[in-house]
């Protein structure tokens, strides 16, 4: 990420990495988002890092997708009928 790519997008690799997680979580403002988007299109190193974090995030998310057991569905249905 200390490569020699064109920095005309006006944001440094260090700045991208500092905001990368917030960027991936949709927590940066529109201007920063546009800057990082533009940077990732021209910087292979930062793109690789962002892609890695994105895939890891997806794997973590997918590791938390157990189906709701029928026993719980029945329990909640019973509660909702009693309300």
């Amino acid at each position: 990420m200390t490569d020699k790519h064109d920095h005309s997008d006006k944001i440094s690799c260090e700045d991208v990495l500092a905001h990368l997680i917030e960027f991936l979580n949709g927590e940066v403002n529109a201007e920063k988002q546009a800057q990082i988007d533009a940077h990732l299109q021209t910087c292979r190193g930062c793109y690789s890092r962002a892609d890695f974090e994105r895939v890891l995030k997806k794997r973590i998310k997918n590791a938390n997708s157990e189906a709701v057991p029928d026993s719980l569905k029945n329990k909640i249905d019973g509660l909702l009928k009693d309300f």
Partner: protein
Amino acid sequence: MAPCIWGVLTLADNLTDREFFSREITKHMESLYNTALRLSRNPDTAEDLVAETVSKAWAAFAKLEQRDRFRAWIFRILTNTFISSYRKQKTEGETVPYVEEPGEDDDEQFSLFESLHQPFLLWWDNPEQTFVNNLLREEIDNAINALSDEFKTVVMLIEVQGFSYEETAEIMDVPIGTIRSRLKRARSKLQKALWQEAMDAGIRPQSNQEGISHD
């Protein structure tokens, strides 16, 4: 006559409290269960936690002024119920404390990508993507479960459930700056645990290249 979009919206707005509540519970059941399961680490306890959350939510539903905030509101009830009623039960015999903001530590700086991004490996593969694609579900489970409850909760709310930092701050009743800090540290701890699991499993890239040091 087919209802127009406004008719549909009006119909939705005219749901009774009970109808609205039932619809929302059904919609969010899987998210609530998975969060409860991760926090309690026990399917039976997770069921009890969700059921108690639903009961408490219905009892307090009249106080919910903004229905569009239902999801964050019920997750707050879930996490509070876990802390007040279930955390002690879970931690009997084991210690995963729900403590407030331990001091800074080296984990904050750990990056799995940088640990994997070894220049000498690049000529034969993309080690970062290979690593993350080959992670076993069990390894991810172990890494998440090894987090303390405060870090696990922030990972579940933001990374898994997609809550904003602001919503997460409200759910956990802490300042948003604390959420940013916790997430940063939680991600670092999680990645360090994944790295350690890989090392324990025998993935030692440096062992393939004698004479190359990786401090």
